C-alpha cells in the first residue's frame, strides 16, 4: 500500500462529516449500481517506490541496446547527440516540468519566454518567419503541414517524396483516412526523388526531405519549381542539425518546414517524447496549427509574453479549428532552446560538421569492404545507406554481440518493400554517425562489420 495521498483517516472523517456523509462510498452513490465495480480493479496492490524500482531494474537490464552500453550508429530520425549536464539540469527545473500550458501569463512568463526563444530559433533554422510552439513529433508535424496545404489550396492530393522517412509517410497515410487526402508517394532513383514519375497537377502539397531519410542531399530546386508551377505548397522535412551548415528550408523556397527536434537536447528515449518542429510563411499564419507565443506588454508596459492568435485553436474554434492539438511538447521545446543556447551559433555548426566528417570517414572505409556497396552515388550529410551481402537484420544482430548498434535495417523501418529503395531492401542498412562517435569507435565498427559479413 503506497500512494501520495495526504489525507489521514481523521481528515477523511471530518471532511465527510462536513459534507453530511458517512463514507467515501456515499460520494459515488449516484453512480448506478449496475455499472459500479464490485471488487475494485483487477490490479495487484501497490508497491513501495524501491520495490517498483527493482522491477524497473529488470527492464533496464533487458534493454541491451542502450547507448551507454552499445556504440550507437543508428539514426533515421533519432540521434545520439551530446546532451551536457547543464542542459539536463536546466530543463529539469521543476518550474518548467510541473507547469501546465501557460493559461495565466502573469505567472507563466518563464515558460512563455522560453517558448518565444524556441520559436525564434526555429524560425532562424528553418528560414521561415512563422514558427509554432511545438507539435508532437516530425511525423505528426508533417500531417499538420498537409492539413495546412489543404486549407490553403482546397485540394486533396499530397505528393510526397519517398525520401521522406517511411514512418512519417505512414503516419500521413493513417491520418489521410480521416481527412480524405490522397497520398502520392514518389519513388527514388539512385537515392534521388524521381518527381517526373508522378502526376503532380492539382497537388495541395509537394513534400521533400532534406537530407532524405537515406541521407542523400537532393537538389530541391526542381521540386520547388514543380510546386510553384502547380500552385502547391512546398513542404520540406529537414534535419535541423543540418540547418547549422546547409541551406535552410526557406532558402530552398519552402512554404512550410517540418522537422524532428529530438537532436536538440532530448535523449533517444525509445522514440518519445520528441519534438515536432514547424514553421511557415506569413501567408499561412491564420492556418497555423497549435499554439504560438507572442510578445506584448503588461498593464505597466513591461514586456510580457502570451499565447496568441488563439482564435485558430480548438478551444475557441472547435470543429473549425486549424488543428485539434492542445497539449503539445513544450518541455522539449524549452529543452531545445536551452540546448541550442548551449551549442550557440558555432557549436551547432561544429556538431553538424563533425557529423558529416564522421559519416564520410566511415563511408570511405566501408566502400573498401567486400560485401558492402553504397546504395547511391549521391552526396550525403550524416547518414548513408549501404547494400550488404547479407540481410541487414542479421548483420545488426551479429554486430550487437560486439556492442555495436550497427544502424537500422531499412526494410524494418519501411515495414517491407518501399518506393525509396529499388534493390533488395532486406540487405540495406542505414548507417548514421554523430559528433559523439570517435575515430576508434568508427574503426572498430569497420572491423566488426567485416567480421559479421565473413562469419
Amino acid at each position, binding site marked *: 500500500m503506497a500512494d501520495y495521498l495526504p489525507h489521514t483517516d481523521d481528515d477523511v472523517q471530518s471532511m465527510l462529516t462536513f459534507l453530511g456523509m458517512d463514507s467515501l462510498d456515499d460520494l459515488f452513490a449516484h453512480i448506478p449500481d449496475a455499472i459500479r465495480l464490485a471488487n475494485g480493479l483487477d490490479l495487484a496492490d501497490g508497491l513501495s517506490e524501491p520495490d517498483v524500482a527493482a522491477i524497473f531494474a529488470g527492464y533496464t537490464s533487458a534493454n541491451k541496446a542502450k547507448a551507454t552500453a552499445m556504440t550507437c550508429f543508428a539514426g533515421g530520425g533519432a540521434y545520439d547527440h551530446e546532451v551536457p549536464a547543464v542542459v539536463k539540469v536546466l530543463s529539469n527545473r521543476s518550474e518548467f516540468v510541473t507547469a501546465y500550458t501557460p493559461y495565466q501569463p502573469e505567472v507563466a512568463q518563464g515558460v512563455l519566454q522560453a517558448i518565444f526563444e524556441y520559436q525564434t530559433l526555429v524560425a532562424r533554422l528553418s528560414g521561415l518567419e512563422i514558427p509554432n510552439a511545438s507539435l508532437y513529433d516530425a511525423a505528426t508535424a508533417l500531417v499538420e503541414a498537409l492539413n495546412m496545404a489543404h486549407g490553403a489550396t482546397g485540394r486533396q492530393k499530397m505528393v510526397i517524396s519517398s525520401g521522406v522517412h517511411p514512418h512519417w509517410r505512414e503516419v500521413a497515410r493513417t491520418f489521410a483516412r480521416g481527412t480524405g487526402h490522397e497520398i502520392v508517394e514518389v519513388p527514388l532513383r539512385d537515392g534521388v526523388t524521381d518527381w517526373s514519375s508522378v502526376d503532380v497537377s492539382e497537388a495541395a502539397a509537394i513534400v521533400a526531405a532534406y537530407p532524405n531519410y537515406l541521407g542523400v542531399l537532393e537538389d530541391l530546386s526542381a521540386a520547388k519549381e514543380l510546386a510553384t508551377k502547380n500552385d502547391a505548397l512546398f513542404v520540406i522535412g529537414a534535419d535541423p542539425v543540418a540547418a547549422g551548415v546547409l541551406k535552410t528550408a526557406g532558402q530552398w523556397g519552402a512554404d512550410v518546414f517540418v522537422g524532428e527536434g529530438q537532436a536538440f537536447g532530448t535523449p533517444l528515449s525509445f522514440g518519445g517524447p520528441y519534438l515536432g518542429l514547424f514553421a511557415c510563411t506569413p501567408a499561412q499564419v491564420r492556418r497555423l496549427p497549435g499554439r504560438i507565443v507572442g*510578445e506584448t506588454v503588461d498593464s505597466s508596459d513591461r514586456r510580457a509574453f502570451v499565447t496568441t492568435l488563439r482564435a485558430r485553436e480548438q478551444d475557441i474554434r472547435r470543429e473549425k479549428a486549424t488543428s485539434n492539438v492542445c*497539449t503539445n511538447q513544450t518541455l522539449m521545446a524549452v529543452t531545445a532552446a536551452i540546448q541550442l543556447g548551449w*551549442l550557440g551559433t558555432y557549436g551547432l555548426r561544429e556538431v553538424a560538421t563533425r557529423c558529416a566528417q564522421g559519416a564520410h570517414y566511415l563511408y570511405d572505409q566501408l566502400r573498401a569492404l567486400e560485401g558492402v556497396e553504397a546504395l547511391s552515388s549521391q552526396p550525403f550529410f550524416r547518414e548513408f545507406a549501404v547494400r550488404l551481402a547479407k540481410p541487414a537484420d542479421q548483420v545488426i544482430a551479429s554486430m550487437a554481440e560486439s556492442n555495436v548498434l550497427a544502424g537500422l535495417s531499412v526494410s524494418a523501418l519501411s515495414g517491407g518493400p518501399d518506393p525509396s529503395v529499388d534493390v533488395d531492401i532486406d540487405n540495406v542498412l542505414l548507417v548514421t554517425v554523430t559528433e559523439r562517435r570517435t575515430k576508434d569507435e568508427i574503426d572498430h565498427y569497420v572491423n566488426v562489420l567485416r567480421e559479421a559479413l565473413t562469419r
Partner: protein
Amino acid sequence: MSGAPFPGGRAASAPLMGHETEPTLFEMSVASRSAYQLRTTGVPATALSELVPAAHLNPEVVPIAEVSERDLVAHFTRLSHRQFSVDLGMYPLGSCTMKYNPKFCDAIAGDPGLNAVHPGAPASLSQGWLEILVTLEEKLCAVTGMSAATLQPAAGAAGELTGLLLMRAYHEAKGDHRRRVLIPDSAHGTNPASVTLGGYEVTTVPSNERGLVDLEALKSALGPDVAGIMLTNPNTVGLFEEEITEIANAVHDVGGLLYYDGANLNAILGAVRPGDMGFDIVHMNLHKTFATPHGGGGPGAGPVAVAPHLVEFLPGPRATRVGDGYFDWVAPTRSIGRVHGWHGNALVLARALAYIDVHGGDGLTRVAQHAVLNANWLRHRLRDILPAAYDRVCMHECTLTATSLKNKYGVRGLDVAKALLEEGFHSPTVYFPLIVEEALMFEPTETESVQTLESLAQALERIAERAQVDPDSLRRAPQSTPVSRVDEARAARQLIATADAIR
C-alpha cells in the same frame, strides 16, 4: 567609457528581487562567446566543402545565440523563477488534473537504461522497453475495462483522433459509411476538432438543466448515419452522466460506437470502468490521471484502449507478448497504421507505469475517492461565495459560477481568477465549459490536503470581500506577480512571434 554597451546579468528579473523583465537569450548574446564542449574524436577534420557540394552549403551563418554556460544557467534559472508550477503550490485548473507528479517517476524516466535506447533498435535488444509497453497496456485495460490499447498517441487530442479513425475503420470494414459524430455542448474543444479531422461532421447535443446530456435530445439526434458519440464521464462540468447505460444502448442501437474522452478518468478509478458503461473506445490522458508532469504544455500521452471488436484496427506495430517472456512488434491485422513517428511518448509511458505500480489497484481507487472528496468539500465550503453551477454531489471537480459577483459588483470570473494568483494559488479554469456562465472550474486533485483547500477557500473569501469593498483592485489584479495583467489583444493585433519579427 566602459567598453560594455549592453549591460546584463542582473537577477532583478527573478521575482526574488523585483519585477523587472529578463532579457532574451538573443539580447544576452555576444559575438564569439560560447558554452559548448564536445568529445575529442580523432576523426579527420576534413573541410565541409570537401564533403558536401557547394550548392548545398548555406552561404550565411545561421545565428543562434552566443552566451557563456554561466549566463545560460542564470537566464533559464531566472526564467524558472518567473514560472508557477505544481511544485510551488496548488494548481486547481479544472479538467487538467494538476496533481503532484512523483519525483520517483521522473527518476525512472531519467535512467539511461530507458532513455538511452534507440527506438529503431531490434526488439531483441530492447526487450525491457517492450515489456514496459505490454505491461502498461495490460494495466490500462484493467483500469478501463477494455481489451487492448495503442500507446502511440502523444496526447489526449491525438488519442481522440486515433479513436475516431478506429471508429471509421470499424464502420468502413463493414461497408458502413457514416457521416456524423455526436458531441455534447459541454465538450472540450479538442473533441469537435478531432471529429472534423476524422472526416466526420459534428452534431452537438444539448445538456439538460442538471448539467447532463439531454437523453431525449440525444435520441432525436441519433440515426443510421451516426458513427458514434464522444463523451467524458464525469462530464466536463464534473458531474457523472447517470444515464450512461441508456445513452450507450441508444447509440449502440443505431450501430454507433461510444468514445470515452479520458480527461476525467481520475474521478472514477476503481469505482466504475468506461468499458462497463458501454464505451467501445477510450483514450486516457496519462499526463492527468497518471501524474506524468505537464511540462508547461506537454509532453503528454494519450493511449487509446478499445473493446474486442476494434482490436484488429489498432495502430501498429504494437509491442506484443509473443512467447514465454519474449516480446515483439506485431501489427494488428487490419491496422489503421502508425499515428506517431515511433512508439509514442515512451518516457511518459514508463512514468505512468511506475505510478500505477506504486499505487496498485487499491491505491488508484483511493486516488479517485480522495479526488472526489476534495472537490465536494471545496464545493460545499465555497457555497456562499461561489455557488456551484449544479448544486449536488460532483465528482473530481466542481464548476462554480461568479455570476452573483458579476451582477452585484461587476467582478468577473476572470478577475477572481487573476486575484487568486496574488493569493498564492494558480487560477481555476475560467469560462469552461461553455455552458456555464462565468464558470470557475476547480479541480483540487487528491494530492492536496484539506489544509490547502481551506487556505484556498479563505483566499476566495478575501477576494469576495474585496469585490464588495474595492472591486477595482480585482480588475487590476494581479499586481504581485512577475508581470501584471497582460495585453492579449495587442499580442494578437501585431504578431511578434520571434525576436526577429519587425515591430
